[in-house]
């Protein structure tokens, strides 16, 4: 599903990723760990074409991300879901409208959207706050709305950048459980985190970055 082949990313003289190579199978779940500045976010940015490698090749499914045209890019991004540390919900839109955003942006049939949104909110156990504004929710609820938004269009790949960074341990476990569920439904999941305890509690593969180099991929 994901393949990094000798990917190097330079910003001027600074090397953010240094000949990184790894592969993730479809339906596999993995953690991307490392200290702050190790290159985790840079690696994730490559996977949604927000960055292009200075050298090497990134493949996602059948897409060679270097060769994506401007018109192919939106189509590719519709196959990916992204969860942020701060869920970045639109404050003046209801939970429903926030979750429906990817479906509307992707041009889904308007009749399909309510069912999809309600199903995603059920998955994260937030059906009861569908009309609430983000400001009326707890931080855990907001994060789960962000997850619902990331999976509502049924992506093949789910990326998460420090998804539990703002949450207490109990909520973090709940969120991890959700990711596991998605993985069980065949979604490839890659989670960037620096929370070692969280990683150790899960039986999934770990990719460890240190100063841009992949030092562990077992």
């Amino acid at each position: 599903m994901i393949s990094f082949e000798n990917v190097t990313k330079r910003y001027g003289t600074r090397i953010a990723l240094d000949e990184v190579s790894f592969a993730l199978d479809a339906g596999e779940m993995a953690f991307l760990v490392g200290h702050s500045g190790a290159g985790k976010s840079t690696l994730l940015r490559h996977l949604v074409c927000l960055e292009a490698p200075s050298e090497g090749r990134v493949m996602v499914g059948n897409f060679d991300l270097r060769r994506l045209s401007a018109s192919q890019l939106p189509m590719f991004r519709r196959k990916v879901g992204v969860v942020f540390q701060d869920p970045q919900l639109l404050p003046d839109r209801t939970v429903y409208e926030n979750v429906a955003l990817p479906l509307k942006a992707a041009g889904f049939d308007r009749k399909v959207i309510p069912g999809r949104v309600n199903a995603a909110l059920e998955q994260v156990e937030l059906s009861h706050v569908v009309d609430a504004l983000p400001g009326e929710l707890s931080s855990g609820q907001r994060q789960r709305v962000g997850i619902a938004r990331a999976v509502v269009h049924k992506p093949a790949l789910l990326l998460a950048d420090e998804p539990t960074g703002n949450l207490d341990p109990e909520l973090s476990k709940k969120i991890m459980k959700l990711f596991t569920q998605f993985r069980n439904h065949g979604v490839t999941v890659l989670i960037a985190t620096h929370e070692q305890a969280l990683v150790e509690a899960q039986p999934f593969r770990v990719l460890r970055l240190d100063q841009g180099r992949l030092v562990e991929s077992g």
Partner: protein
Amino acid sequence: MLGSKHGGAIAHVEASREAVRRLANDPLRHTVGVLVMALMLALPGVAWVALRALDVMLPVEATTPGVSIFVGQDVSEEDISALADEMVDRSDVLAVEIVGRDQGLQALSQLAGLGDLVGAFETNPLPDVVRLAIDALPGSEQMQALSLSLESDPRVEFVRIDQGLSNEMRNALVLGQRLVLILGAMVLAAIVLVVTGATRIEVTRARAELALVDLVGGTQRYARRPFVYMGLVQGLAGGLLASAFVYGGAILVGQPLSRLLTLYGESAALVGATPIDMAVPVVCGTLLGGLGARIAARLPTVAWT
């Protein structure tokens, strides 16, 4: 599952709703923007209508070059009529008028304010005159050629080319129209800049949302559409208001202009704004609003936080 590829009517309706929602979020700023646009559009519109009214209402002699043929004292009325008929047949002559010597003396009396001038002469010293309105530019070679050919006619005493007033009036009108066109072009450019600036503020405000739309696979067209519609709505509103200003302005300018010309003996026909005068600001406002918004609504760079 994918629907109408962002091009369906529903997507456009949603984008329109979104545009109205954004406009309603800051009504004061957008209303001021619409008013500014309306005033800018109305200014050249009213000036154009006023100039055209002036052009239409001015006496023909004021804007058309002419030739006065002073006929010899001993030329008979039949010969004068024959001369006039010859002039009518010429392709470069628009109109021919015979001003008899008595008519000329009467006009001179009125002009000089001397009521008994007619009775002061035993015989009328003025010649009969054949006045021609010429279909030619003042000062052109055609006018000179006509003058020379007429002077060789034995019935003609002398010929005077009347183009002083027409020259000035024509040049003034052309100058006025060109100034209005330049003003119009500047206004159109200014409107695009105003809308571009206003839309850019909206785009900057919606930066987070646009970044999300971009990241979840929304096309640039989808992201831009509400902003372009915003510009179109603002342009349409500004254009409609400008149209009303042009209508009102035409009435305000037309009335005194009409009264002024009545003083010079012209009919008091009132010239107002035509449907085209009213439509032009609406069309220009809408198109320029859309263009300005289109320029401004470029997606910002997505920030990963």
